[in-house]
């Protein structure tokens, strides 16, 4: 029985391999066009569109790190906003108190994030699933409280202003410049995550997510890999928070509400759990959706008077979209995308969906 199954599988692999060159031949062209579009975009787009793209890149870093932790390693975190706040506030405090340049503050933010990740991860050694989610939620409130305390103590009642960082002698203020900086950061984050996934670390994380007990019997040191997942993910998140602080030039605890954590969770749900491409797609979707709704509502004539209610509409739509994906499309946008590719590509490759 097992022999027959094995040879079937081997055959399938061979068939798949034979198909691959065809796919490869088509792909580079698509990728080339994509790269060109991304590079030319800031030159032709309007400033607010460039700003939107910048937000997407920032969100990508955050969603990739959450995908790593929750989607790949299976550790639920509801405290993502707390970690972003940790990064942003490390920058704000270092800048305000010591006037340090960005090449000091961002690494410090990364280290702070790692430390916080360690603290967030400690409960995961004893707790699983639900309880872990709760402890990260609790830590979020604690971090945000201390941020608020700092603001109150130094009487920055409305927030902390940060001057744009200077790069090679000139200040990074222009949207186009930020576009490329954040694009680079997001690309680096993606490459880091992809390499981690293809290493033994990534495989250990997958094992951890699938079944902790089995992973342990396979000789994977669970505690170490759990903490590692928290440390790496939190460090990345804190860097995203730090970049956010510089990008906006302004830090305030109000920006890091529980709703932000939920938005990041929405990104990986909508994009597709456990998939890095999904995290990117989800980030773009979640950032663009409010603009889409706002545009749609305002395009209806006579809707100006309801403009105040748009944010409520965005909340409600958000919840509805998340529920829709959770219930009807757990694989997310990536799942839809792969199914479309499978449907319309000539060869109809295996229906299995790659993580």
């Amino acid at each position, binding site marked *: 029985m097992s022999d027959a199954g094995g040879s079937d599988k081997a055959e399938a692999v061979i068939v798949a391999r034979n198909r691959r060159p065809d796919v490869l031949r088509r792909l580079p062209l698509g990728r080339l066009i994509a790269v060109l579009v991304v590079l030319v975009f800031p030159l032709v787009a309007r400033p607010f569109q460039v700003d939107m793209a910048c937000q997407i890149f920032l969100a990508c870093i955050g969603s990739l790190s959450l995908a790593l932790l929750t989607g790949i390693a299976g550790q639920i975190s509801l405290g993502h906003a707390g970690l972003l706040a940790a990064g942003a506030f490390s920058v704000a405090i270092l800048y305000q108190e010591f006037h340090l340049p960005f090449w000091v503050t961002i690494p410090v933010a990364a280290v702070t994030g790692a430390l916080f990740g360690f603290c967030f991860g400690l409960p995961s050694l*004893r707790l699983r699933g639900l309880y872990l989610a709760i402890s990260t939620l609790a830590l979020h409130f604690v971090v945000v409280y201390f941020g608020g305390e700092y603001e109150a103590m130094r009487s920055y009642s409305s927030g902390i202003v940060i001057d744009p960082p200077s790069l090679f002698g000139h200040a990074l203020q222009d949207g186009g410049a930020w576009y490329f900086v954040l694009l680079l950061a997001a690309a680096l984050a993606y490459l880091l995550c992809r390499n981690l996934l293809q290493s033994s670390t990534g495989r250990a994380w997958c094992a951890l997510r699938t079944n902790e007990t089995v992973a342990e019997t396979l000789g994977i040191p669970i505690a170490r890999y759990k903490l590692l997942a928290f440390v790496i993910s939190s460090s990345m998140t804190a860097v995203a928070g730090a970049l956010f602080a510089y990008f906006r030039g302004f830090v305030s605890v109000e920006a890091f509400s529980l709703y932000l954590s939920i938005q990041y969770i929405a990104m990986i749900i909508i994009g597709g759990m456990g998939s890095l491409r999904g995290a990117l797609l989800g980030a773009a979707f979640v950032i663009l959706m409010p603009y889409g709704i706002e545009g749609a509502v305002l395009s209806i004539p006579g809707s100006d008077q309801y403009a105040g209610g748009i944010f409520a509409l965005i909340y*409600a739509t958000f919840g509805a979209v*998340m529920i829709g994906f*959770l219930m009807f499309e757990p694989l997310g946008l990536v799942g839809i995308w792969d199914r479309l590719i499978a449907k319309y590509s000539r060869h109809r490759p295996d229906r299995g969906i790659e993580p």
Partner: protein
Amino acid sequence: MQIAVNIVVLASIYALISCGYVLIYRVSRVLNLAHGELMLLGAYLLLATSSRITPNPIVAILLAALLSVIVGILVYLLLMRKMTGESVLAAVLTTIAFGIFLRGLMTLIWSPQQFDVARLIGIANPALEIIPGARISLMSATLVVVTVIVYAVLFIFLRITRWGMRMRAAGQNPLLAAQRGIELHVVYAIAWCLSTFTGSAAGMLIAMDSRLDTTMVIIGLKAFPAALVGGLDSLLGAIFGSLIIAAAEVWVIQTINPLLADVVPFLVLIAMLLIRPWGLFGTREVLDRV
């Protein structure tokens, strides 16, 4: 004395809310993070029934309670029936998403402005001096009494009645319970409707005691540590957890920093998770049900 009264009132608020978390978790192992929003919905339903349907406050309250029970059943039938039994993550995330949806919808319908509910529906809320030197508002006193009644009824219901026993059985082992012919969907639906009923009762009373706006959700969220500290599947635990959280919060407000009040429940929660994650009265096995 005043401090003791404050603690009892706050503990009753938390206890009345947290029994909703406990009921659903105990019966179906789903953590309902939309409970705060459902509580808020109860308060808004009262606003709607009193302004649209009847000026009589008692009838309006009863009508709102009835509506909230219907909402609870609908939430189970339309949403959670599909998610119960799925992974912990998926179920919790669904409730979070539902909470966001509900909050948006409520803000859309009732606008984010603040309402003085007691005045709108015509109920006086005088401060009573029960013992010399300690004051309590009428609504707070009502809330304490309602909490005591709700817990007494729930204990009796779960201990003695047929459906109460079925609910406990379903919570202990859903497979065996189903094998014995217990209709799990009915049991879960009852849990959801009891939970939204108690939650919305809390929401209405809090809204009548102070004001009503969407920031009230935070009270619902702060009641959650109370449920967990006591043990997520223990009603008795919820009472003790509420007392502990309320005492800690009032003490911190009095002695250290009022700003810390919103964080204290979560600090207690973290401490509890590190020492005894299953809570004071919770069953330990829940930890292994991942």
